[in-house]
């Protein structure tokens, strides 16, 4: 849930006049073409960034965004085209030259040494002003200056491991600013942040553009793109498929430019009669990773033919709730999880699965699939011991192949073959493999966490349609989705979680974004501190 309630950030002047702007252009990439054997990674891509603007580079995975950025940082040489910086031709052959030229990068995966302090991390790789001696005092002083000037609030003396994810990202920004970056590339900077942290980040970014810095913002979250960008360039298959400004476009249009066809961002949900309660959770209490209570007394019912979505800022117990239902996290005494009238609170995962539970975990690559295993092996990860897949104690490869081929076809998994390792599939296709595996077991109850996180729009649309189809055949689904739109679009009822409790259950037809957003933030409508129990039974 990271795209709710973006603050209304005042856009800088640079973007609003559109292409006829008089603001100086910092960077121009003209006609960039880069070929790899068999692939045209960039084809005649133009991108320009003006002073003080946020220029968003939007595109699906593999659209050519990272190739373009690698060319900017000298990691690749373009086959055609040129890079101009402040009107002069720029030839960069290594990232350090890019940094010298005033171009900085904030990586999606932080490049920080956790055991060192902020100052030490910033000083890493820089020449000390005191020769062989370190000049950490001077570095700290400048960090404090930069931090204050930009509202970054980072203490240079603290070890990085003590910092939150949002703070670590600010250290990365300081690193770039310390090196005098005038043009900053932010690679999916919001992927790891909570909504509040996203809001804070956007304020910081706006301060930076106000000083005349140019930003290239790489993202695929359409809400954020609409909220932050001055201009948007969309890439698809290595080509620019559109350049626009937020005022003249919509999320749907952007999605269409990214995918190349009209996309349904919110799926159709035909009415289905809710059946009997299949998953009944009573007084569920679960400890988090640090031993403190993460889920503190949750009551929730999910009926057959119903999708119940959990809305909440991440870290409010959703993950622990899903893992507790799946049997991956022990529940505290007194908790009850009834799966088709059997209390499974003390059962192991195998037993729960045998009783009809399907589980799509939040962490696709660590918990959901095995990267080194082939598509075929991943498809039988749960059911490999079943009678239909074994013959005289050995795996029945013929049956496994037939089933795998059928599933790959039915779920439209894009893979060279069923023997391809999962690691070489795209996120969306891996997710389809996982979904195929879980749905092929014909579960009566599904727990689905983050089904479309980091998944391309086309796959997300497909995954949504499968979840809706599953609802049609009477499966009870507990959904813990990526963002509020997904919750509202897919759910029959929405349960809002705050600090380990379900503070409200709202039928989707009564769901209002703003109201749910407030509940997620812990603001309840009555004046008392007590959460408003808006429990609506189906």
């Amino acid at each position: 849930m990271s795209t709710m309630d973006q603050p209304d950030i005042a856009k800088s002047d640079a973007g609003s006049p559109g292409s006829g702007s008089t603001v100086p252009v910092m960077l121009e990439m003209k006609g960039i073409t880069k070929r790899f054997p068999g692939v045209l990674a960039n084809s005649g891509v133009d991108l320009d960034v003006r002073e003080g603007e946020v220029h968003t580079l939007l595109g699906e995975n593999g659209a050519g965004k990272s190739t373009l950025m690698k060319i900017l940082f000298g990691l690749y040489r373009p086959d055609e085209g040129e890079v101009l910086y402040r009107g002069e031709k720029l030839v960069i052959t290594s990232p350090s030259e890019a940094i010298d030229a005033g171009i900085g990068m904030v990586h999606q995966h932080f490049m920080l040494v956790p055991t060192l302090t902020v100052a030490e991390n910033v000083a890493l790789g820089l020449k000390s002003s005191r020769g062989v001696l370190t000049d950490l005092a001077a570095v700290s002083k400048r960090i404090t200056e930069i931090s204050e000037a930009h509202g970054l609030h980072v203490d240079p003396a603290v070890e990085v491991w003590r910092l939150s994810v949002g703070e670590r990202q600010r250290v990365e920004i300081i690193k770039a600013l310390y090196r005098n970056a005038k043009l900053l590339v932010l690679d999916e900077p919001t992927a790891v942040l909570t909504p509040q942290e996203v809001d804070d980040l956007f304020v910081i970014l706006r301060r930076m553009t106000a000083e005349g810095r140019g930003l290239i913002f790489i993202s695929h979250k359409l809400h954020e793109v609409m909220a932050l960008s001055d201009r948007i360039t969309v890439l698809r298959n290595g080509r620019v498929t559109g350049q626009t400004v937020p005022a003249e476009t919509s999320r749907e249009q952007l999605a269409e430019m990214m995918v190349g066809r009209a996309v349904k961002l919110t799926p159709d949900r035909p009415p289905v009669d809710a059946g009997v309660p299949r998953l009944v959770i009573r007084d569920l209490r679960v400890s988090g990773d640090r031993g403190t209570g993460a889920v503190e007394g949750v009551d929730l019912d999910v009926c057959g033919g119903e999708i119940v979505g959990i809305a909440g800022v991440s870290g409010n117990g959703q993950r622990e709730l899903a893992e507790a239902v799946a049997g991956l996290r022990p529940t505290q005494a007194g908790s009850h999880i009834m799966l088709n009238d059997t209390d499974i609170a003390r059962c192991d995962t195998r037993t729960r699965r045998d009783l009809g539970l399907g589980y799509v975990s939040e962490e696709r690559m660590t918990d959901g699939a095995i990267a080194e295993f082939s598509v075929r092996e991943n498809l039988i990860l749960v059911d490999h011991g079943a009678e239909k897949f074994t013959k005289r104690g050995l795996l029945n490869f013929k049956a496994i192949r037939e089933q795998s081929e059928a599933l790959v076809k039915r779920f439209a998994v894009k893979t060279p073959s069923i023997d391809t390792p999962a690691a070489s599939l795209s996120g969306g296709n891996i997710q389809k493999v996982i979904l195929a595996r879980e749905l092929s077991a014909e579960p009566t109850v599904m727990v689905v966490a983050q089904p479309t996180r980091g998944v391309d729009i086309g796959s997300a649309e497909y995954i949504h349609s499968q979840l809706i189809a599953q609802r049609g055949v009477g499966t009870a689904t507990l959904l813990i989705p990526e963002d509020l739109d997904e919750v509202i679009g897919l759910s029959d009822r929405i349960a809002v979680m705050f600090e380990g409790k379900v503070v409200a259950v709202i039928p989707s037809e009564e769901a209002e974004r703003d109201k749910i957003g407030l509940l997620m933030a812990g603001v309840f409508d009555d004046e008392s501190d007590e959460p408003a129990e808006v429990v609506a039974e189906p």
Partner: protein
Amino acid sequence: MRKLLGASIPILAALVAFLFGALMLIALGASPWEGLRALGSGAFGSSDRIVATLIKATPLILVGAGISIAFRTSVVNIGGEGQIVAGALLSTMVALAIPDLPRVLLIPIVLVAGLVGGAIAGAIPGALKAYASVNEILSTIMLNIIILQFMNFLLRGPLIDPLEVEAGTRIPQTERLSDNAALPALPGSRLHLGVAIAILAAVAAWLMLWRTPLGFRLRAVGHSPAAARSAGIKVERHVTYALAISGSLSGLAGAILVFGSESQRMVTDGSTAGFTGSAGFNGIVTALFGGLHPLWTIPSAILFGGLLTGATNLQRVLQVPAALAVALNGIVVVFVVSSNRVRARLDALMESRDEMNSSDRSAEPDKMSEPEPDTFFEEVKPA
């Protein structure tokens, strides 16, 4: 193409290692060509020598196959030495307890006793790792020492040959074990049943890993305990199984060492190596060189077995220390293990070409990705 690359690199590593061996020979003032010939003829020069090589290779095949299973489950088993001894001890005790059973019964029984002894020695560190997070590298090494002392105690005390006590020599050895337990050999040759059993066991290990649900689960646990757990696989149990199975194959090697030997008894010189010939450690090398693949372990073990038997001849012919073979052994390991890096580089190189096809790779650490079971060599990842 990539498969070919994978297969050729360990061989290349071995060639480079031999090149180093040649340099060492030159440094010792001997002709490398002569050295190679002496090594080769010592290992494979006559049918007797081939048999000697095969017999040396037998425990290496078994330990190597077991190590492959453990490593595939991401469990590092350094306890081969202790597990061999445990298997040998249990089978010896069984043979002492029921010496008069007919051959057709006694031989399978002592072999099973070897399996069980090794399995127990493996299951202990396995369970400790699975349920108490005790590092298995440490616990298996420690257990080697404990089992060694237990062997010394048994062979000097309860199991000592009564004749030794009578004569007052007190050599720490058991009495000669029942002939009914001796592994049958080809007439006029030392080639005994143990060699065939080892090869069969390696084949069984391969079948288990890639053709059975159990092996599937072990490999799943090895690659990703978290994903295995989410899929309903009992991770702790399978970690224990992996070390128990790995240990059982070493234990079987122990039983074969006792009942395939000419002396038909257990003797100790105070070290495990005195009994095992360091097969518990060399088996790790064998497995690594065989790409942690039980079938490739067979030729790999024959190569290392040949190196061991050939070294004696090398010493005799060229008057150079037999330790040279041990050094060669070590160099092969260094090169094979470091060739992992080389291969990772080559793979990365090939991957960067089709990088643009494979989307959200950025989200994942670079993984060596090759379809199993054709994987020839895979990075060993200690848990």
